[in-house]
């Protein structure tokens, strides 16, 4: 007897058991997301409110830890246990959409009164599209820019944030003060997605992209990073610190600049005991091409759902609440038609304006079904250079060869 036929018998037995229970009038839609583990988040709050409206659809909401989200989804999908709706980090989305694991909602979205795909920023919309079809909708978005400590800038006699890469290297050197345990800058060059997230924009500013990483500017960028670490303008621990911990050293005054995103704003507003501001990421040359990383999550409906119409209604409900995204959950909606209200904290409001401008240059990672392998090739090369094991050109050439093998 094969496992399959045992499963079939178990299935029949279960079906027989469920027949004995009176049929439920409500359709249950299972939703997975990372929201709500600590504080109330988007998906858990909205799902609760949706259920309180007592329609004939009920949401069964589950929190999945961030690190396990994709694995859990893959395993559940393979065993027929997938939820109806899931919210995924944007670079992971193509893993599912490219193989038809998500429901094609192109026509449903076009017919919907709630959804208008033309209002979304281009980057986020690209990350939910595959092969010209729409497989989901952006949930919220974020990006990275340059935080700087205005007090330390004033002390060093520097008027404004650096605008080009070479200015950044110089400024970082000037701001470095070993006597007071202050580095000029901190960022994250970690062996993981965060490392790629921070380095890829620099490759893009130099005219490259994830499938073209060995452009001359990419070599220059990573050599600049290495120069900052070698000059001790940046801690060598940028190689193992995540963005959150890296920016923690900025908040405690141990780094004068930090590259990170809007998710830092709440903590920084309370923890940072100095005047700070945000600037756009410096460009390769004065007035050069801009780019930044595109973060944020997307919604998708699994193709295996038994209730596509009801699941789409739930999705429409989530999207209809996008205006509350920023005031209630401090996340930036991925669409241009929603103005962010003032928070009343001047530093934060000024920072948000910069982030919104930076978002216009944000480019998605991929989309590619094997993004994670591409990403590893990029962060491996980045780390080989930063630790001085391999020269930049050689490391990026090797990464390019690996990526070529993946993208074909």
């Amino acid at each position, binding site marked *: 007897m094969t*496992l399959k036929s*045992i*499963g079939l018998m*178990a299935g029949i*037995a*279960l079906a027989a058991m469920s027949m004995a229970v009176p049929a439920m009038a409500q359709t249950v839609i299972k939703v997975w997301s*990372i929201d709500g*583990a*600590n504080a109330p988040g988007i998906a858990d709050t909205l799902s609760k409110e949706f259920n309180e409206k007592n329609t004939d659809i009920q949401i069964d909401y*589950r*929190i999945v*830890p*961030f*690190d*396990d989200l994709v*694995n*859990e989804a893959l*395993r559940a999908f*393979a*065993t*027929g*246990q997938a939820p109806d709706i899931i919210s995924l*980090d944007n670079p992971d989305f193509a893993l599912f959409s490219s193989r038809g694991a998500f429901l094609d909602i192109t026509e449903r979205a076009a017919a919907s009164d709630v959804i208008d795909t033309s209002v979304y920023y281009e980057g986020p919309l690209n990350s939910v599209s595959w092969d010209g079809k729409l497989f989901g909708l952006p949930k919220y978005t*974020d990006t990275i820019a340059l935080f700087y400590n205005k007090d330390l800038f004033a002390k060093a006699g520097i008027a404004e944030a650096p605008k080009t890469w070479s200015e950044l290297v110089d400024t970082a050197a000037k701001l470095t003060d070993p006597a007071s*345990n202050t580095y000029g800058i901190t960022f994250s060059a970690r062996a993981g997605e965060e490392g790629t997230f921070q380095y890829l924009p620099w490759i893009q500013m130099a005219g490259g992209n994830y499938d073209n990483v060995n452009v001359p500017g990419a070599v220059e960028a990573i050599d600049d990073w290495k120069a900052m670490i070698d000059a001790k303008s940046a801690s060598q621990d940028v190689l193992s610190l*995540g*963005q*959150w*911990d890296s920016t*923690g*050293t900025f*908040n*405690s005054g*141990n780094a004068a600049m930090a590259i990170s*995103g809007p*998710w*830092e704003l709440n*903590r920084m507003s309370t*923890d*940072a005991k100095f005047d700070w501001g945000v600037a756009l990421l410096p460009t390769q040359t004065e007035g050069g091409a801009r780019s930044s990383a595109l*973060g944020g999550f997307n919604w998708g409906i699994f193709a295996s759902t038994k209730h596509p119409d009801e699941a789409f209604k739930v999705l429409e409900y989530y999207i209809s609440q996008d205006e509350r995204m920023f005031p209630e959950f401090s996340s930036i909606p991925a669409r241009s038609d929603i103005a962010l209200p003032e928070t009343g904290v001047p530093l934060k409001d000024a920072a948000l304006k910069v982030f919104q401008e930076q978002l216009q240059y944000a480019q998605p990672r991929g989309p590619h079904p094997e993004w994670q392998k591409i990403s590893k090739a990029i962060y491996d090369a980045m780390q080989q250079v930063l630790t001085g094991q391999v020269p930049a050109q050689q490391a990026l050439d090797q990464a390019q060869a690996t990526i070529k093998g993946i993208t074909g």
Partner: protein
Amino acid sequence: MTRPYVPWLLLGLALALAAVYLFPLYWMYVTSLKTGSEIFANPPTFWPMAPDPSIYPAVWTRRTMGTFMWNSVLIASGVTAITVVLGTGCAYVLARYRSAWIDFGLFLILMLQVLPASVMITPLFVGFNQIGLLNYPRTAVVLAAAAKAMPFFVVLVRATFMSVPRELEEAALVDGNSRVGAFFSIVLPLARNGILVCAILTFMSAFGEYIYSKSIIQDTSLQPASVGLSGFLGPNSTDWNSIMAYSAIYVTPILAVFVLLQRRIVSGLTSGALK
């Protein structure tokens, strides 16, 4: 050892070693009382600038830790029960004979523990799904984790059984006891200490079970404390002081029990040798 000061020197050295060894534990408690950015301060502070113990009740209620802890206790108890019931008999037999088959059995038991839990979880998930066990997630975790704990238990308890003099069992058999009778009335009581201690150790390590629970148990109200801890690790945030406060709450009760029992644990294992 006639010099009277030597034991006190040894005691001093022992205390110093223990202080070094237990430093990470101290660091856990101190970090939990620091603010978010003080954790990244350079130089580090050895005592928080403004200790804030209110984080403990806050974390407890915010993360509904009562439920998590209860589930951890349930799962660890289940794992221990299965391991003791199945493992004790197995260890006894493996200690009783010397043959190539016994060697093979030991070999097999060790080999079956080789794959890390992170690699075992996919096949187990698929298998549990086929037989419908995923609907009883805590039971499923107990079964999976017991299989992981078993080899360790068997190897340790086997050593205990080996130190039970065989003559005692044979004498009981001569007196007309059955094998079953001799096992329960003579051998088990003699090995009781060792089994008890191994059971406690099994319980303690099962209390931290993480990989199986996080994948198999989807309902938050059924998850153990280890899974609750991972909720603090977000994509762009790591709430270090909450993590440390949660960890402190998580390990303190078991540390307390452990410190109370540790003399018996150590002497139980060592005197199990019956020499």
